[in-house]
């Protein structure tokens, strides 16, 4: 069953007096529990695609359906609820809240869900444990290494059991060893929890961790890397 379905997606930016048609009728179907990666050169629209699926960017034409919900039909409040319940974001620079500890960062995303304080604490602890950071739960982001911060970000994205995880260059700021570690964790959690991952990256080394790699060229997705 497809969790994410995108049909004829068009997105245009206006930069100064220039109109940039970045996505030109893009189609995509992602089955539940799959981990797919979108690759493409800078400016090809990878991040734009993630922002559209994540409901951050709402200015598009076409249809995006996530878990049966047509995003076009959601107002700002419902989009916020959609992100809160169904989407987990992972960013290149982790974007952790610096004034909250690792545990509190993970708890933050569940704060507004219908969960008791005890459930939130238990879930956050469980996911920090899953990413191997239970001992650093009370550390502030600036006290953690880059890899540890990204693992906290992964725990934060996954802890609320979202329908999809959107990861934008999740290893872009990590060295090769840490990259391997982080991607390994993401793959294992995807398998264990049956979560759907959409990762965008430049990095070809990540291909081996994902179920499928798609290439974004000229505003549409291709299964093959080259044009022939």
């Amino acid at each position, binding site marked *: 069953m497809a969790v994410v379905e995108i049909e004829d997606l068009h997105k245009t930016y206006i930069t100064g007096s220039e109109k940039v048609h970045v996505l030109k009728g893009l189609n995509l179907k992602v089955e539940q529990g799959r981990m797919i990666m979108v690759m493409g050169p800078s400016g090809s629209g990878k991040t734009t695609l993630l922002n559209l699926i994540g409901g951050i960017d709402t200015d598009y034409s076409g249809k995006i359906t996530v878990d049966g919900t047509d995003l076009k039909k959601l107002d700002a409040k419902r989009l916020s*609820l*959609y992100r809160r319940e169904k989407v987990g974001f992972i960013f290149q620079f982790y974007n952790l809240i610096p004034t909250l500890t690792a545990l509190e*960062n993970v708890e933050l995303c569940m704060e507004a869900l219908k969960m008791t304080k005890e459930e939130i604490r238990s879930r956050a602890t469980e996911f920090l444990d899953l990413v191997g950071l239970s001992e650093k739960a009370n550390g502030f982001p600036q006290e953690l290494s880059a890899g540890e911060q990204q693992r906290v970000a992964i725990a934060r994205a996954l802890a609320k059991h979202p329908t999809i995880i959107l990861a934008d260059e999740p290893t872009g700021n990590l060295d090769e060893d840490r990259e391997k570690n982080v991607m390994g964790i993401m793959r294992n959690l995807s398998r264990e929890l049956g979560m759907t991952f959409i990762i965008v990256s430049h990095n070809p080394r990540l291909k081996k961790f994902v179920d499928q790699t798609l290439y974004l060229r000229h505003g549409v997705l291709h299964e093959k890397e080259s044009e022939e």
Partner: protein
Amino acid sequence: MKNTTRSVLRKLMGMKLRTIAISLVISAAMALVITGYYSAEVFQYSVEKYFEDNLMPDVFYEFASPINDTEVRSRLSGLSDVKTYDTRLVAGGIYTREREDYPVVLIGVDDPARKDISVLSLEDGDFYTDSRGAVAIGGMESFGVDVGREVSVSIVGRQLNFTITGIVSSPEYMFPSAYGDYSLPIGNSLVVLYMNKSALQDVVGDGVNQVVVLLSSGGSMDRVTEALSGYPITKITRSEDHPSAVFMEMGVVKMKNMMPVMGFIFILIGIISIFMTMYRLVQNDSRYIGVMMAMGYDRSAINLAYISLGVVITIIGGIIGTVLGILFTQGIVSVSLEMYSNLKLYFPPAPVPFLIGWAFAFASVMLSVSIPVALITRKSVREALEYRPTTRVHSTRISSGKMLPSTLMGIRNTMRNPARTVLTIIVVGMTVGMAGSWLVMSGSAIEYMFSSVENEKWDLRADFLYPQSVTALNETTLGFDPGQAGDVIPFTHMAGQAFKGEESSGAVIVGCDNIKKVKTFHLREGKLDFSRAVISFRLSQDAGIHAGDTIVFKGGGGEIKLTVSGVVDELVGSIIYTSRGNLAELFPQEMCTGVYIILNEGQNENVYVDKLLDSKVVSKVVVQSKLKDDLMTLLDDAISLLYTFFILTLSISFVVAASAVIISFMERDVEFATLDTLGIPRPRIIKSIIIEISILALGSVIVGIPMAYLFAGILAKVMSEVLFYFPIHLVMGANILILLIGFLFIQASSIVPIRYTRSLDTETVLRERTAG
């Protein structure tokens, strides 16, 4: 324009919110500096213009008993020193309304519509045309003295009924509360009626007892006084010693002294606040400065670019500051003048206050821009390129307990940059302190005034219409047998001028042989020897008189020499206390102008008030137990003015707080965008902001309270030199108000980050600020 300059200026255009915030801080501080200097100028100019336009007389002569009108006119008519004059009959009376008594001054004049001396300006209605009509000085309308109303006045035991035909203003009664004797703080509830002179003469008796003179150019007052020799002159008042002029001068001096002190404190606050803002702005540009250095631009070119930025911000802030300065000045002077009279405001062409304001704004901004630019350009190109403003977030480990992460975030955000938070709290605390100082001063002054009123040990004070013989104080003159009361102590009261060498000051002399029984004195220097003279601290300050000095008091056409034995704290005015015998050369010793009455325990003061008011010689009765109420009436307007200052200054706290927090919040755009991606509901983000600002506000008001006492102490010292002395007390009411209202004003600044986070475009922030 150089490309570097153009680039920096375009950057400024791009950050409208921040530019507005910085400009507002500059404009607020500048407005206060301008207001500080300009309000005194406007106050003085407006009052002087009013005096000039309404032909305030140069000299006022008052006589102990009525003199012949025709005769005095013939003496003055031939004098070349006199441009014009008027002869009047002035009498005191009582106006009773709803069981409240108000002192009345009835002024009998031949023509109320005269345009050549002491012009009465009609504010409402018309001048009277018959003996039953009267015009009243404005300000007592709410007490029933209004156009078309019947007013009944008790005078020398008779009831006179008038119809008020018009409400007027007069340069002689601009400050009705100043009329009287200075020695008692009587409320602003004096009824002044101008009426037909012959109608008043029918009641009081023929003749006139006041002559007002407008001197011709180069005319001599001495020659006029000489022409009037032989008449029983009790008081000669020059226009500059007239209560209107004295109070105007006091207001001007008060403003000239106090407002610049306030302005100076704001300069300090402004410099710190502008520096904080501009420093951060330039620091954030460090990488760009590094790029310019790498491209070969020298320090002066880079400096010039940022100085241009400073110039633009100064111009924007300066224009707003100038407009605000004029508006603040108008507000403050209007409220100040309303305390006394409704005068039209005139704005003199005085460039100095504006030049000072602009110079201050320019210097503060230039300093705030140049220092961080210099710090960055001192580094090597590589260092400059790598230089990043300290954005390390300090995290405070506090026990989270059952607190939600969004709550914790708000609490910890307060101390994410401790140095900046502390500086912000101090700066905002200073502005709150400045605002609160008005309340502390007001509270301390009231408390001191009330305690001073308690120093008055008499129960009733009666002033006579005409001087009375001490030996003839009996049932006829007082309305009761003096033996019935505990004590009846006569006093003589005169206004004049006190001289010590060249130095002089307007003063009131009180001759009383048992003054210690009447009043408790607090000695400042010397000793309480009333057989010589004891003077008030204010007079000591004004004329530089101290214990042991010999002074000359001139009044009533004569002069006496007195040795000062001590200086005492006195609530209002410049007063000399001495024995009646010492006044003998000025005023017959067997006569007195009034009595203090001390009642026996259990005696009903109202009974004695009624008896005194029935007397034919009593013009005014003051009840000691009502002095506090009178004081509050007197202070009502002054308190409103201080509260206006309080709110006005708090609005600066709001601007300073808002500009400080917006800089801090703009650095956190990625955090807010991230919270949006997490789907954190907006109310929780707002809650976190409100918690953060609340802690900041609480810190600021806590710092603000001691600051308020510090500033109040400084301002009270200035006040003691120009108005009257009062010590600063701990005022609980003021503390609570500073805490609550100060908190609310600073808390209101959270609207700025709340709006900012609402307008934040998550997609753009993430794209631009977190792209790899």
